[in-house]
């Protein structure tokens, strides 16, 4: 398998006016191509810090981040920004769609930013929105869409540049349970088409949509589990039940 994203001995210390806070204390993590991985842990466990470091949005105190075979934690801000645009798709808890652009303009923006022609960008954006069930919402402003629809648009935007990896920060954290289940279904569908995904969440149900769950506690990986295909579920009726 090909390694898409890797953390080696990743540590992050925040200096909060005298008191040093150890947010991450040496995390090793490797995401292979085509994997859907969830980092799970309670608030304060370091999962958001970890995601920011992996995305090159923040710099580690120690350790290394490798994306697609290149070490990225020492790159300049400009190089990082260029890398993110081409290789990483983001899905956020609060969608982060640009409110003054229409839905389809939000989706085509990452394509235009890497120099795609306007016509090609529009066609790709429209196709993606259609696939994600929001094909009829192209002209809508984000504020006119429900949370679930906004997250579908955001997912289309994340997938627009066929990124090496999609990173999600509590991607269903602001959705009701029905919309959350739909978005999780779409993430799994993306994975089934070969997309590599990494999400962080405090919600075990969300994490259980992934193929592999990495439990983070106090800035360290405390456990890791590979989920199997769903097992059959049945009511516990037994023969000779205490009648």
């Amino acid at each position, binding site marked *: 398998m090909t390694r898409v994203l890797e953390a080696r001995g990743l540590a992050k210390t925040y200096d909060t006016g005298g008191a040093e806070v150890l947010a991450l204390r040496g995390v090793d993590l490797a995401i292979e191509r085509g994997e859907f991985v969830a980092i799970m842990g*309670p608030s304060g466990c370091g999962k958001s810090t970890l995601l920011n470091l992996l995305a090159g949005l923040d710099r580690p105190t120690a350790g290394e981040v490798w994306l697609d075979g290149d070490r990225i934690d020492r790159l300049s801000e400009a190089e990082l920004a260029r890398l993110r645009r081409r290789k990483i798709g983001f899905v956020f808890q609060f969608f982060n769609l640009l409110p003054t652009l229409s839905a389809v303009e939000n989706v085509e923006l990452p394509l235009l930013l890497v120099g795609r022609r306007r016509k090609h960008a529009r066609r790709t954006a429209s196709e993606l929105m259609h696939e994600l069930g929001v094909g009829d919402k192209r002209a809508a402003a984000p504020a006119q869409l429900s949370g679930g629809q906004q997250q579908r648009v955001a997912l289309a935007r994340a997938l627009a540049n066929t990124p090496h990896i999609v990173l999600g920060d509590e991607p269903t954290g602001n959705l009701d349970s029905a919309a959350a*289940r739909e978005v*999780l*279904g779409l993430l799994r569908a993306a994975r089934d088409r070969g997309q590599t995904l990494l999400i962080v969440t405090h*919600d*075990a*149900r969300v*994490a*259980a*949509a992934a193929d592999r*769950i990495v*439990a983070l*506690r106090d800035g360290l990986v*405390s*456990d890791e*589990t590979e*989920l*199997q295909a*769903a*097992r*059959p*579920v*049945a*009511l516990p*009726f037994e*023969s*000779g*039940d*205490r*009648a």
Partner: protein
Amino acid sequence: MRELFLALIAGKFGYGYELKQALEQEFGELLPALNAGQIYSTLARLERDDLVVGQHVEGDSRRKRVYELTDAGRAALARWIETPVPGMWLKDEFFMKLVVVASAGLADPKTLIDRQRREYLQSLRDLDALLATNGKGVAAELLVEGAVLHAKADLEWLDLIEHRLTMREEPT
């Protein structure tokens, strides 16, 4: 099972196969394959305890029996309906196992907790897969949603157990 049967019989499902169908209708694929033997042995026990009475249907050559409640059966059903169902939260096999196995020094508590957490996470996957399938009834769907909530609560509980046990191990 026994009170469920009383309620179904009171609801005019008098034949064994009707009871089975009624349960299947509500719970669909969640219901394990109930064989006729299980249904009829439960009915036989209810009849032995004088809670139901079965009669052969006149003119039915297939020896089918139709059941109805006795007075005692109606009283037992009424008591069951009026009595709230107690919660079973103190009954937890994993926790008993953890306490006894850990205090006997037979296994590392963290290992047991991690293994149990993996089992619950896999259960969440199993349950959500079931919700994603079509054609299940409202009752089955609500039951599975309930199971998901319980599994999430148990996962939180595992975190709490682990946190407390770790604090005890690291004196400050």
